[in-house]
């Protein structure tokens, strides 16, 4: 995914009910955590979420696929 300089990718996790597990539901590009929260909430508004959290992608440490964490298919190496 291409993104502007000064922006980071943020990964979004959410659950609809208290008893649900948090699931990875998507990604937004944002220049700061404040905007990442707003973009996540406004972009992924297809459900009434019990909880939603965001974290910068680079805060995650790969455990096994160290070269390409968070890739959805082989061609993407963001």
């Amino acid at each position: 995914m291409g993104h502007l300089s000064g922006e980071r990718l943020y990964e979004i996790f959410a659950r609809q009910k208290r008893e649900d597990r948090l699931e990875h539901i998507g990604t937004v590009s944002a220049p700061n955590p404040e905007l990442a929260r707003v973009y996540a909430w406004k972009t992924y508004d297809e459900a009434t979420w019990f909880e939603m959290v965001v974290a910068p992608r680079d805060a995650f440490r790969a455990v096994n696929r160290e070269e390409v964490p968070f890739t959805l298919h082989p061609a993407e190496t963001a």
Partner: protein
Amino acid sequence: MNPVQTGSFKSAADLSDPQREALAGVLLSLADNKRILGMRYGEWILGAPTLESGIACSAMAQDEWGHGRILYATLKDLGLDPGHLEHERPAGEYLSSELLDRPVPQWPDLLALNLLFDASLSVQVQALTDSRYEPIHYKTRKLLEEERFHFEHGRGWALRLSETEAGREALAQAFRKALVPSLRWFGRPDAEYGDLLHSSGIMLGTPDALRDRWLAQVIPVLAEAGLSELAAEAESGTELDWSDWNADRRRRGEGGPDAGTLARIRGDKNRSMLMD
């Protein structure tokens, strides 16, 4: 000023005529401003700096139009005709801020509406949320939840632009234009509507108290974004100039939304396709 009363008004029938008129004025002003503000957000869906901020503008536009619709509907209980108010008034009858009269030219100008003026509207709504006038309660809670994200959007972008000197200057210039209108919007300290609604517990706070709440919310963000000069100007804003203030319409002077804006907020084109 009379002491604040307690107890509650279950319906509009419990209000006196002056209370009903003053409350209708506040609700119509909120509805008109939200209707046009929604359009201003909508105008940036395709022009915002990033895809994500375009989506946010689209969502904020929908929120504002939803809030406007809810607020217009509340006026029915107060004896007004929402259909007429939404679709048939000339520009000179809109109770909308001069900030919204025409499309804003640049992204920082939209952020000024987003962070400063939208916050004025929310502070006013908040003052009605725990009102003694019960029919308002249920309608404003969700609205305020949505507005938290509008403010956060404005804050996030203020922080982003303030990272460079050019961005900070553009921001300061746009915010300076919107500062006084956003502060004056609450009305004169002795505004008649304020005294009537505050003393009866329908609005929790005088115009000056609402202005103080706005300052408490906005000034920390101005400071965070390195706009300390502007923050200082805002704090000394109690010395507002009221010489051209139109109290009935809560705006500067006469005037109103321009012709293009008016046609779109009234939905003139849509209605021309309706056949009776």
